[in-house]
């Protein structure tokens, strides 16, 4: 599995919850905490389930979500 990390710029989030809707693994939720503007910002729960599809980053109107994906190099399989 690739190493995926999702970073959310909390200050830019306006809690539209588009990312919550589009996440196929349903690992994004609105936090019970608020940012300084008073919005319940998006946060990632079980990050280990993230597939790196980037739907959340694509759909975010505020460009507040970034993904970094570190490719795991698989050991070459022996070919018969």
């Amino acid at each position: 599995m690739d190493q995926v990390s999702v970073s959310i710029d909390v200050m830019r989030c306006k809690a539209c919850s588009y990312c919550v809707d589009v996440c196929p693994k349903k690992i994004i939720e609105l936090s019970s905490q608020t940012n300084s503007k008073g919005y319940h910002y998006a946060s990632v729960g079980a990050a280990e389930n993230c597939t790196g599809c980037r739907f959340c980053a694509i759909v975010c109107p505020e460009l507040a979500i970034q993904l970094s994906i570190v490719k795991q190099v698989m050991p070459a399989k022996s070919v018969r």
Partner: protein
Amino acid sequence: MMNKLKLMSGNEALAESAIRAGCRFFFGYPITPQGELLEYMARRLPEVGGTFLQSESEIAAINMVFGAASAGMRVITASSSTGISLMQEGLSFLATAELPCLVVNIMRAGPGLGRVKPSQGDYLQATKGGGHGDYHTIVLAPATAQEMADLAFEGFSIADKYRNPVMILSDGMLGQMMEPVILPDSVSVDQLPQKSWAVTGSRDRGRNLVLAAPYTDDELIELNAELDRKYASVRVQEQRWEGKFLDDARLVVVAFGSSARISEDAVVMARERGLKVGLVRPITLWPFPEKAFETLRSTVDAYLTVEMNSGQMVEDVRLAAGVDKPVYHFGHGGGWIPSAQAVYDEVVRLHDGSIAR
């Protein structure tokens, strides 16, 4: 030029299609869920020698539209519900001055500031005036990304033909959703029909005037009469709709835009169960496609409007259907999106309640 299938969001498809229709001016202010439309224009318009300007407000934007339209240019602005409310005074001015333009409303949930989920809560605002005075905008309601492109392209022709603002009434779902789209061929700006009334400099001709209001009382009364004649001819010539399964339908679902494509799935499900259910999808919301209902009067028992609002289209359907036909409503605003199953359940409930047996 080969027209290839492209995967685009409704917002992007509409923006590109507008450019291909010869539109070179966009004035607007960012708002979700309209954002991609404005962003696309910001990137693309400079590439084709156009002008993109992010105004300080929606009020400024609609008045910039007035300016560009006065000069005879194809011009577009786009916003979402609350921003469109700010533009209403300008829209009334545009209609009064008989200026063609395209105004796109990617509706979001209201009332008030609301939130950014899709809605169809601006039906009444769009079709019944919105701004002050006796005027109409011609309102087109796409139901797919393809139609976002097609109706924007054609919308400019309709606007030019009647010298009237055309509104594309879409919503956040259609704007954000990505679908395969075939874009129209580009029109060269030079090939667009000349507008003899436009304010383009009067060196070799008499001067043209574009006025937000006539100078005398009598002129204003005459202008109102003239506008009425124009609107009457739009009512006769421009009604558009799509009908499905209507031949033997006893219950007809009436829905536009997003809720229409969901309702179509529900109607297909009902047909599979043998229920005599049909669908009317208005494409022009103003003028409302009354003609679609004329042939249904003798065969249909009842109507069901499915809308992502509190039933704003019900009265138009009631007027078109005739007073003796019940018109029911399913839906509400606030960002709620019906599932095909929920619409189907409502259809079955009405059907089994002997309404359309």
